[in-house]
């Protein structure tokens, strides 16, 4: 007698009914799952359309200059909040460059630092760490990856920002840029460093997983040919793990791009484009990335002009995230031949 695992359970009633029920269950499950999958896609589609429709007035009013520099962005947002247009401009007048520059600065610097540190940490974890250390570090890293960003924000605002303000920024430095911008310890450097710490765990976790799944025979083969350990790691393990490292980087970049809570607390809360020509002061200048700007202005969603602008910022973030996934996919293609999957 063949025992179908689905129908082998203790059963009542004749076999015919059980068969009928099983067959229908398959069909029902297929339809339900199909509906859920389509519903997810439809929701994403609806979300994209909603955001773009609501954002359109802001884009059509400003054209491509939306992305460019021009004037003080805080005055522009304030004008919208007060429903009083700036003299000589439309109420929707908006130049987002300081926000875009702020997003680029925090995201790119955090991801670059995290990429180097996480790769080295992953190599240590898989190749050098004694098993006891690995057993402790593995769960700790996974735990860190799940810490809510507001916790990082709190630590930053209660400890790091006041420390930097009191010990690193001299009064002379404050006075030197006082007419343009105020230095308060919450700045592009603090924000980028805390962001790095936030995205590190997930990158270490994925990279270490990929390095561990490199076939042992490949490394042994390399060692048997007389290649030293570091060169083996560099030329065999890391090369093989490249697709996973790219995937980790994309994931981390997406998180950094969308981070709002921690950045609105720690980046200085002012739409300002830090100037590289300011030398060391550059690191202490405030920024406000796109996502944090949405958060800080969300209270004004009932004001039409501000709402269009907030949705426009949201649309830029959505499209950047989509392009990021695409770029990650494209980057992975050429590494795939000898790579391990993430």
């Amino acid at each position, binding site marked *: 007698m063949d025992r179908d695992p689905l129908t082998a359970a203790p059963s009542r009633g004749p076999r015919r009914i059980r068969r009928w029920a099983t067959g229908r269950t*398959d*069909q029902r499950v297929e339809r339900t799952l*199909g*509906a859920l999958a389509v519903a997810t896609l439809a929701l994403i589609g609806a979300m994209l359309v909603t955001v773009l429709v609501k954002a359109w007035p802001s884009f059509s009013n400003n054209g491509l200059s939306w992305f460019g520099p021009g004037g003080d962005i805080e*005055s522009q947002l304030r004008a919208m909040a007060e*429903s009083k247009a700036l003299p000589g401009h439309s109420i929707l007048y908006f130049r987002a460059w300081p926000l875009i520059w702020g997003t680029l600065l925090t995201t790119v610097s955090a991801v670059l630092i995290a990429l180097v540190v996480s790769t080295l940490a992953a190599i240590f974890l898989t190749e050098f760490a004694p098993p006891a250390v690995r057993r402790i570090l593995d769960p700790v890293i996974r735990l860190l990856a799940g810490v809510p960003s507001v916790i990082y924000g709190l630590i930053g*605002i209660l400890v790091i920002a006041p420390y930097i303000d009191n010990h690193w920024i001299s009064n002379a430095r404050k006075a030197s840029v006082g007419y343009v911008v105020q230095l308060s310890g919450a700045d592009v450097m603090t924000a980028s460093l805390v962001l790095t710490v936030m995205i590190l765990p997930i990158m270490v976790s994925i990279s270490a997983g990929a390095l561990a799944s490199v076939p042992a025979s490949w490394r042994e083969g390399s060692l048997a040919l007389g290649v030293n350990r570091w060169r083996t790691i560099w030329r065999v393990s890391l090369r093989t793990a490249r697709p996973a490292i790219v995937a980790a980087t994309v994931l981390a970049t997406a998180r950094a791009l969308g981070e709002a809570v921690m950045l609105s*607390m720690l980046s200085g809360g002012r739409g300002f484009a830090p100037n590289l020509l300011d030398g060391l002061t550059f690191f202490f200048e405030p920024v406000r990335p796109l996502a944090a700007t949405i958060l*800080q202005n969300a209270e004004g969603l*009932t004001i039409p002009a501000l709402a269009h602008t907030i949705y426009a910022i949201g649309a830029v973030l959505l499209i950047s995230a989509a392009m990021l996934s695409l770029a990650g996919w494209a980057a992975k293609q050429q590494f795939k031949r000898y790579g391990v999957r993430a």
Partner: protein
Amino acid sequence: MRAHRTPKHRTIVLSAILALALITPASAIASKRLVIAGSTSMLPLVEKLATAYHKAYPKIPTPKVEGGQTDIGIDDVAAGRADIGDASRDPIPGVDPTGLVFSKIARDGVCVITNTANPLPNLTQETVQEIFTGDMRNWSQVPGSTLTGPIDLFDRENVSGTQDAFQNIFLGEALKISPSATQESSEGLEVNAVGADRSAIGFVSFAATLNGGVHTVDYQGIPCTLPNAKSGQYGGVRNFWMVTKKVGTSPQAIKFIDWVTKPGNLTVRKIVSSEWIAIH
């Protein structure tokens, strides 16, 4: 196992119907709602009141609250486009349309705060304006200050009601808070920032000063306390009004305003005193 393959198109049609059902908004049922329009400063308060009103009278739909501007709200009421107008400034005879009733619902005010290491005794309106517009940048220029060094300005985000109150009460139409100021996104963060920075100055609502941690500065010689604000002695306050037509106002609108201004209405009192000053 018998795998019953459903024709693909049937799955897709069924799925699409289910998906549509999921995303159709549930609140597409039309009903007569009270429309309240006007001052953006009053928006957070009136939205809270509207929600609580619906909770108190579940049969009456939540009034629809729109922002904009005090003057737009007043004009909308006069023209019949809104049932109630929100005004965050006192009525101006001769400027406002005639035939309107202004009902005072609450007071709004802010305190100027500094670090406890900088117990500034008093500030005049002129000094407040000079500090916050960025004309005065060093504590040594501020009368009564024992501190020297640059002034750190702490502002609130543009859409905050507290920022709007400070702007309108202390600075007026012509002056603006220096755009270089750091913006904090909540009262708690503002108090924390001022409490952590010796050379800081900022502003918060009355409720936020009650827990200490910062020094509350007297304004024009009057301490910033709730009794002083209620009595009208303290200068850093303004009135919140609800505006209706003298004749032809809907009974619903009258009922709502009566509920808001009813003496001893604990629900309203609790909402108002969370960030504003209750007067009823």
